[in-house]
Each structure stands twice: as C-alpha cells, then as structure tokens.
C-alpha cells in the first residue's frame, strides 16, 4: 500500500494514464471478447444480429469506462446523492410509465439515443450513495441502529420500485449489495442475523405478493420436471447444455443445444450454458475465474484507498459484479430460481453492459485517486 502523506499534489492526467491498471483493463477486454465470441456462436457463426452490435457497444463502453476512470473521485463523491435521487426518480417514472404502458414489465426509459434501464444504473447509484453516507459516519455511529435507518431506507426504496416493475433479479441484487455495504460499513453483526431471521419469517408474505410467473419460476426451480415443456423447459435445457458439454466441451460453434435452438434465451440470460457446452468445464471455470479475479481485484482497489468513500465504492461495485455473475450462473445451473439477471459483458444487452462498464470506470477512478484524502465532512468543510 502506498505511503500515506499529507497534502499530496493533485494527480495529473499524464500520471493517471501511466498508472492505469492495464492488467485489470485487459481482463475486462477479455470478458467482452468472450462475449463477442459467444454471441457469434449463438447466431450460428454470424456477427449478426448480436456479436457485431455487442462488440461496437463494448468498444464505446470501454471509452466511457476510461472517461469515468479519469474523473476525480471527489466529483463522484459530490454526485453520489444527486445520482441516487435522479435514479430513484427515474425508477418512479418507469413505474408510472409502466402503469400506462402495454407491457407488464416496463423497465425501459427511451432517451432517444439509447434505451436505459434505470434499475441497472440504480445498482451503481445505490452503492455510491451508501458509500457517501458511511463516509461521513464514524465507527461508533455505524454501530447505532438510529444511524442505519437512513441507509436501510436508501436500499428499500429502489428495491420496492424495482419489485413493482416487477424485476425480482434486480431487487435481490440491490438488497444483497446494500447488505454488503452495511456489512463493510460497520453495521453491528447481530443485525444481519436478525434481518435474515425476519426475512425467513416473512417468506409466506412475500410468496403471496409474488406474481404468478414468479411463483411458477420458483415452483419450477424446485422441480423442473413438473412442466418440462413449459416453465421447466428453460432450466432443463440449460442443464442439458451444461452437462453434455463435459470436461472439454463440444468445441467452438459445435454446441448442439444452442445451435439447434433447444437452449432458449441463449444470447441473453442463458449464454453461460452455451459457453460451457462448447468449451466444457474448463471453459466455464475459466470464465468464472476471470470474473472472480475482476471482483477480487476491485476489492483490492478498495482496500488500497485512503478514503472511506473510495473503499466502500470499490467494494460495493466489486460485490455488484460478483452478484451479477453468481446469480446468473447459479440460476442457469439450477441452483437458484430463474430470476432474469444477465451475465455482464457477455449477455447481449446494452444497458447492463453500460452500467457494468461505468462501474469499472469508477473502480479505476478509485484506484487512480486512492491517495486523495476526503474529509468526513466533505464537501461542507474540513
């Protein structure tokens, strides 16, 4: 860890470029490229309709990531609450728009040049807001339940909106990422046990408030054979794709489950089985390993930061990435119900990629500005 000194000079752009984490960026590019390859295969050896847009979008997101990386961490600090407030407002807007929209799940806001899913961006905004909140709290403050009321509301408000959409996957991610932030922020340990117990007790209530299709997903998860051609079809075919891949896979472009269309949603949520079918256990584990490395690298960035905001922001974003990967792969393997979470940078879809790359940009920003000291009372004064 770098020597901590007072009154360090402000980092210059040239120095920032020199100290860019090239290994980390290389890994990100590797994941994006794997995504391009998988989407090329998903379209039966064709760059259209998925691989080409994916790679173009990835290239542009890469630029966004770098741009975000060079932004001073204090700017992110100052933007934390406004960004959160904006996203909450957008989520509310989506919910209102959803009431008048034709579709049950109205998750998009059309900004003209790109369609944005506010819930994806909310995952970042929530981490930012919580990081800023805990930045201003002392260790003793964090132990007090009174202090935790505001962050709890900060987590629950977007979660509630997202659940109304309804988007179970994102709601779970927001809850878990928020819990991780509370944990590293120093909330008392017993609280997690208590909330966990309360959550279990509330399960029947949750069950009753769930949509029919969500209940079906859970039922199907518990026993996919109940409805092998209906709701259980996805998970059954996904397991077959994974299992038939074996140790070394069927080879690039030679997956039968995906190429013969038995695997549904193979370009989006179920892209991991496509990879594992063609590349086998080794390929699948390599992809998981790459994501794990990225997540641990991000956590490492957090531990190297000299300001609490940067630490928590980095850890929160890393946990977010990990949750994406875990929920997506666990659901395609049949470990948890199908909740609709994409595999970052590999699944086809614009918003999730943009959100994840923005997150990576902020992570790098934390790294580049790790030595900047931010007062607990910043920006109100030292």
């Amino acid at each position: 860890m770098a020597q901590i000194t007072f009154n360090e000079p402000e980092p210059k752009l040239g120095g920032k470029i020199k100290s860019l984490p090239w290994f980390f960026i290389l890994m990100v590019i590797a994941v994006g490229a794997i995504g391009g390859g998988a989407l090329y295969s998903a379209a039966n050896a064709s760059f259209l309709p998925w691989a080409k847009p994916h790679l173009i979008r990835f290239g542009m997101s890469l630029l966004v990531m770098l741009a975000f990386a060079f932004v001073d961490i204090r700017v992110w600090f100052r933007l934390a609450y406004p960004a959160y407030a904006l996203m909450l407002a957008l989520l509310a807007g989506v919910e209102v728009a959803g009431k008048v929209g034709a579709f049950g799940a109205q998750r998009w806001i059309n900004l003209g040049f790109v369609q944005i899913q506010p819930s994806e961006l909310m995952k970042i905004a929530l981490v930012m807001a919580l990081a800023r909140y805990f930045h201003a709290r002392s260790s003793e403050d964090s132990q007090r339940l009174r202090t935790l009321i505001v962050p709890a509301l900060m987590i629950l408000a977007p979660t509630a909106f997202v659940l109304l959409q309804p988007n179970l996957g994102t709601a779970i991610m927001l809850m878990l990422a928020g819990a991780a932030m509370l944990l590293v922020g120093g909330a008392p340990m017993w609280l997690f046990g208590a909330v966990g117990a309360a959550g279990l007790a509330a399960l029947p209530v949750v069950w009753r408030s769930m949509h029919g299709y969500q209940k079906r997903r859970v039922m199907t998860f518990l026993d996919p054979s109940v409805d092998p051609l209906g709701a259980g079809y996805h998970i059954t075919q996904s397991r077959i794709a994974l299992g038939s891949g074996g140790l070394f896979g069927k080879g690039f472009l030679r997956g039968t489950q995906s190429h013969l269309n038995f695997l549904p949603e193979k370009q989006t949520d179920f892209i991991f089985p496509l990879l594992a079918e063609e590349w086998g256990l080794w390929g699948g584990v390599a992809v998981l390993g790459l994501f794990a490395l990225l997540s641990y690298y991000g956590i490492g960035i957090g531990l190297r930061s000299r300001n609490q905001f940067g630490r928590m922001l980095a850890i929160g974003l890393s946990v977010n990435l990990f949750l994406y990967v875990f929920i997506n792969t666990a659901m395609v393997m049949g470990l948890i119900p199908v909740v609709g979470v994409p595999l970052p940078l590999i699944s086809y879809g614009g918003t999730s990629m943009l959100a994840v790359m923005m997150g990576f940009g902020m992570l790098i920003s934390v790294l580049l500005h790790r030595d900047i000291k931010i007062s607990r009372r910043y920006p109100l004064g030292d």
Partner: protein
Amino acid sequence: MAVERGDMERYRTLTRRTLMLGGLQAGMISLLVGRMYYLQVVQSGRYKMLADDNRISMRLIAPSRGLIVDRAGLVVANNDQNFRALIVSEQTRDVERTLGVLSGIIQLSPSELERIRHDMARRRRFVPVTVRENLTWEQVSMIEVNAPDLPGVIIDVGEVRSYPLSDQAAHLVGYVGAVSESELSDDDPVLALPGFKMGKSGVEKTRDEDLRGTAGTSEMEVNAYGRTIRELSREAGERGRKVTLTIDTELQIAAHKRLLQERSAAAVIMDAQTGAVYALASAPGYDPNVFSKGIPSDLWKSLLDDETTPLINKAIGGQYPPGSTFKLVVALAGLETGAIGLDHSVTCNGTFQLGDHTFYCDAYKNGGHGTLNLTEGIARSCDVYFYDVGNRTGIDAIAKVANHLGLGARTGLDIPGEHGGTIPSTAWKKAHTGEPWYAGETISCAIGQGQVAATPLQIATMVARLASGGHAVVPHVTKDISGGEPIRGDWPKIDFKPEHVEAVLAGMRAATDHGTGKDLQIKEPGMQMAGKTGTAQVHAYTVAERDSGQIAKVDDALPWKLKNHAWFVGYAPQDNPRYVCAVLVEHSGKFGAQAAGPVARDLLLLTQQRDPARINVSAELPAKPA
C-alpha cells in the same frame, strides 16, 4: 499515521469484514464450480444422452410391400409409384402465384386450394404440404419442366398398391388400407408411420406379416422446431417377401368372366389331390385399386346396400342350402353305417310318406322315377330314394360323414372371411333350440334342405375328398414362403370303405353320362367329367302349387331373394380325378343343370386344357427377399 481521527478504526472494521466478504465469495464460487463439476463430469454421460435425445430423431422408413404373384409368377398385387406434388411454403416467395401456376398444370379445384392453404397455415413453414397425390407421368413432366416458375414445389415418389386383376380377384387377393387404432397395438412400430397401409382382406390380410417387410431407420439431426438439419445415418429396411398363390390367373379371369353372366354367383376350382385352389371367384366384385387409395363414402355405401353383396366373397362366405349335392353325403353315410347296402333300391312313385306328412319328389308330376338303385338314385337325383336312405340312416350318422367331408366347419382356407355352414344333428338342435330332433327333419336334410347350409368352397372340398378316394384334402390359395408347393399326397386318409366312395363316384359319373347332367357332358376325348347337380329351394312350395303343376310359373313370379339357388359340382377327368369345380348361381331361379352346370362344364374343360397342376414356375424361382 496520517489517517483522520476515527478512520483507522473503521478501516480495520472494513478490512476485517471485507475479508469475510471475500471468503464468502470464495465459498460461493466453490459452490458454482462444484455444481459445474457435478453437471459436467459426474452427470455428463446422462446429459450427453439427453442432448442426443433432443437433437437426434429416429425416423422409420417404410419398407416396400412384397408382391403377390400367381402360380406362374404373374404379379397380381403390385407397387405402383405414387407421384405426389408437395409445396414447402418457406421455399416459395409468393404462395398464391405458385399455386396459380400449378393450377394451370393440374387444375386445382377451389376446395383443394382451400385445403392446401389450411394445411400450410397450420404447419411450420418448412413442412411440405401435399398438393395432389397419384399424379400422372404427364403431369409430373409438366411440373418438372415448369420448375423455375414453381419454387417450393417438390415431386415426391411414394408407393401405392395396385391390383392388375381389379375386380376379377378382389376377394381373393384383398386390399390394403390405413392402420386402424386397434391394429396399432401390434409390436411393429412401422404401423404407426403416417400413411402406412396394411392388409385388410384376402391374402393381403392373412399374409400381411410376410408382405409387410421390416422398416428401415434413419437418424436425423433436428432442431428445436423439428426441422431436419441433416441425416446422420441410415439403416435400410427389408422389403416385404413375395407371396405366391396357388391361383392360375387365366382360370381366375375366365371363371370371373363366366360368373359375370349371372347376376350373382361364385365358383371354386381346386385340385382334388393337393387341395390347391386354382380359381376362387365371386361375382360381382369390386375394384380393390379404389380401396387402397381410400374409398369414397358413396361408393362404399352403394356396395354395402347392393343385394348381390359384392363385398362378400360368396365362394367362402356365402352359406346356401346345398340341395341335391348333399345327396352324395347321404349316400355315403347310408353305406358307411350299413343302413343300406350297395344294392339298395327304392321305388319312387313321386311321394314319400312319413307319419301323416307327405314329401314330394321332383318327378311327382310324371308319376315318379320308378325303381332305382344307388347309382341311378344319384344320377337322376331322386328325392324319394334319399328320403328313404336318410330316414334309414338317421341325422347323426349323416352329420358325421358330412363333417368328415369338410362340411359344418370352416375348411381352414388361408384367407379371412370363411364361414363354416351348418350341418344339423340332434345335439346341434338341442344346443340351439332346446328342442328334440324330429324324424321329419331328417327327410328335408337328406336332400340338402332344412337347416343344412354350405359354402361353394365346402361343396368343392367335399367332392375333392370323395374324388381323391377319401383323403382329407384341405383347400389353400397360397404356397409357403419359399414359393414351393408342398406335394400333398399325404393328406390323411378318412376312414371310408373304398367301395363305398367308389359307389358314390359311380353315381356322379352316371349323372353326367345319362342322368341330370347328361346335356352337360364334355365332348373332348379323355376329359369327361363326373358331377352332381343341385337346386336349392329358398321358397317352400305349397301343395296347391305342386298340384297345379305351375312350379315354373310360381318361380318366375318370386322376388329375386326367394328364387332357387343353382348348384353344380363336378370333377374331371372321370377316370383319374384331378380337378374339382363347384359353381353356385345365387337365386338363379333355374335348375342346377340349367344355370350352374354349363358354367362348371366350361370351367372344367378349360382347367383340363390348361392343366394348372403342371404350371409351377415359382417353385424354380423361389422368392428372394430383396
């Protein structure tokens, strides 16, 4: 340390808890890897199988049906190419335009177009839809020539069964039809193939398993929508085996043509030594070619409603009182039981009195036949003679001999639809009506009336058994699968005294030489026949009708269904009995010698001229499975 006051403590907390979090993540990753190991290594074999189940679709390839040939190797059931035009909607840019062009070639009716559009709407875009079946060669050529204007139109070649003999052997050869729900329980999966046909009647039915063959299989790779991507492997099936008939096509055609001169008739020509049937005809018939393509319901209804029952094989399924032909049985029974001797004679004055009931002879008007011995009794077919013999012999002894001669039970012919007829006995009557037998009933039965009923095939078999010197010949229309015909000199001998059988045969010779069939005798040297006429009453004449001598007039006035049946059964040549022919003219209203006799005579002459027993080509060329 240059850390803000209080920051050190929360940094420590954060580091500690981040490590916990990192550990938790490591645990979750291990869970994922463990799960992958379980799916991709431990359970891999099972999932590979499931993936193959998904993508590999086994398709059965229908085998070619075996041919049916006659004893000379002439094909009587063939497989014709069935050219079908199909259309694949995804391969044609403009379906309506393509159908329009096609309609210019094969004239599609509005209802056909309706069905095609309906089928196309219901199926996936890559599934071919049938436009028209059974295209002619000219139509196929026209479609091929216009192929550039007909994108998506395919010509597909299937097989359709055809029967060159058409209605001339319809009942015998049979026909094929769609597999019914109940027949699906069979173990053979090929039956479930769409459009597969199986034997429904005749030889097509009895030998269906030989003719059917074994299905081939084709392993196809299919996608989730069922579209075939490619063929992975193919295993050829085995075409059905050839079945050889004992039938002689020329005789069969001649018999059928001859029968068509009557309104409704049946004929059997068989070998008295081997039991081989050379012709089995029932007229009118129907065209089985229509049946194998699917019967129009109005045609089916008209066939069902026809009182001449064209759908029934009357030669084996029609049961008629045998009339005087049954006197052969009664004569043999009388001799066998000892009720009469070889020299038994009876004086006929036109009537026979039993109790207070009077039974008449045909010679009643002319004052009777006078005194007759057994030979003349048969030759002149005197009813009184057989009233007397029957009365002496008793019904049970008659029934026993009748059964030995193949009456009263199915002969066991190797095609479906055979009936067993009826030979009454005291036990039979007790079982059927609960009533005791009356002696008067025996009198009616003695001349083949009353409850007695037999099929033309049974009457032919009866004479074959007599003419073969009392061997239990069983008729059959097919040879064994090798195409060879077992030489059946080894039919078991029935326990009749040879001189008794000879006495009956002498009566038959006398009948055609100078008796009831004297006008029928064949003139060609060495081909003379022996035979027995029969006229079976359907209507019981009243005494008034008999006394008025107006029987002929009464007959003419009767509705068709009540007119007499005419029988003739004979064998030839006289000195070396080989061929047996039985003819029944249903409700002819004439005497057997008038209506059935000439038919049988013509057929026996033709049979001897052709000598089908010598035709045996297929034995030298055994059927090989293709």
